[in-house]
């Protein structure tokens, strides 16, 4: 059994963008790809990028920002009142 993750998340849409990747700083270490439990970071060739639909899937944990020693990922929380809602957190 593997619970369907997206079905287990409630979210209020409408935030401004809150994660940015500075490709010039990225050293392709790949740590963001490992720690993002939602698999929102991808690598094609030697280019890392963030899923287009990240705003509707991100759980706002900040792990990608935390592991990015190259300081290429900028992360802020989504707009107030928007984003993920944990009713049983």
């Amino acid at each position, binding site marked *: 059994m593997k619970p369907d993750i997206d079905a287990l998340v409630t979210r209020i849409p409408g935030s401004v963008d809150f994660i940015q990747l500075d490709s010039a700083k990225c050293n392709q270490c790949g740590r963001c790809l*490992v720690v993002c439990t939602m698999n929102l970071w991808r690598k094609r060739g030697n280019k890392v990028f963030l899923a287009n639909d990240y705003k509707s899937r991100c759980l706002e944990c900040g792990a990608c920002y935390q592991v990015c020693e190259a300081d290429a990922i900028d992360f802020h929380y989504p707009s107030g009142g928007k984003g993920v809602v944990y009713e049983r957190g």
Partner: protein
Amino acid sequence: MKDYDIIVVGAGPGGSIAAMEAASRGLKTVFFERGRKPGEKNSSGCGLGPRMWQDFRFMTELTPDSCPSMRAGAASRSYFVNKQGVVAGYVMARPTESVSYEPAKSFITMNVYRSDFDPWLATYATNAGAELKTSTLVTGLMREDGRVTGVIDEHGEKYRGLVIGADGVVSMVARECGLRKRWGQDHVTLIPQYDYAVDPRKIDDIMGDETLAVWWSALFPAAYHVFFHDGFHIGLGNWMTWWDKNPLSYLNQVVNLEYFKRLVRILDARPREYHVHLLPWQGTPTDTHADNVILVGDAAGVPCPLEAEGIYPAMMTGRAAAETAAEAISAGDRSKEFLDLYDRKWQQTSVGEEFKTGPELAHIWRALPFSPKETMTWFVPMIMEILGGILDWSQPHAVRVRQVMRQVKSYLPQAVPFLVKEVMPLLQAILGDKMELLTSPEKLMASMPELQEAVASAFEEKEGSS
């Protein structure tokens, strides 16, 4: 521009207590929460320890009316999962004979969903006169003449006052005031967790007053299992340095254990939510304050070094921060040097006590349940050999005892270095120069009173506190 005495960023346990303590001292206080209500962004719904009832008298007012998810109990369970994914055994434990604080004899933790608990806690701050602004993200710090003088919210509104950063593990306040951009990778953990819905009667029937379980395992980092009124959390974590693949894949190994699946069946449990959160977990909190800024709770890195209990430390540091801020304001000095007082204050509390042996405690935990492959692969079978080895009627008992001893001996090449490397430093830190006694059983027996005294002085037990 709005003027306040105290501006608190975050309405988690740290922020609400800071706001409550500040407002009740007559300070004009505002606290901000990015969620529509406090608690809806938090995922640690978990254990509140009996200490909280000691230090925060109003905890006795926590009732199922205000906090429907609450569930307390006296027992915990430890499962031991071997590298084949089999539950090789489990132990149920209740508060032991040595427990001295009376209420702790009847419950080990009170489990609550943060979505219930945090809003309840925030009402103590608003009742004390603090102003709560929900659905408001604080995006930056305001500077005047190069100094931090307040905060700016997402709408560009400015608020002037002494800033208490209670904004959790990914702290904007810590970042913007230059204290910390991010944690060292071995100072913070990542924790994915599922919530399952369960009928309360099933929990009562099947779990009784067991409120939590730990799944110690050779396959995944120790997983915790916590029961609430109508559901449970199952989650696990490890330091950022540890993960070699998607952390969720380790959690899915837990929910796929045959034993776990059976439990889910008999509890008739359904997955209800999925959460993921970071949690600071380190031996020594540093960089807790700057000019006109104090960090509390997760933002300050104060969760307990052994088990990362973080709600109580957030509340205690929230209180210490508000007291310090009040003194700074009345002294007219908000410099970092004056605010050093904050560290002295929280270090004198039971939170500070934890960190006296912080690095050793954090280390031992990391080396044991959080090193499933390196340590738990021998630890689990060794423990089970001892616990379960004798219950076997295949041989005369004398033969079995010899077999068990031989098997235990075969783990010694791993167990002894572990003891030397991980356990000895902890004992050293606790016992100091009394440590030599341990290496000589005769001396040890001859000096039991001295040993007791050493343990007592290591923990600085105060008269009548035990």
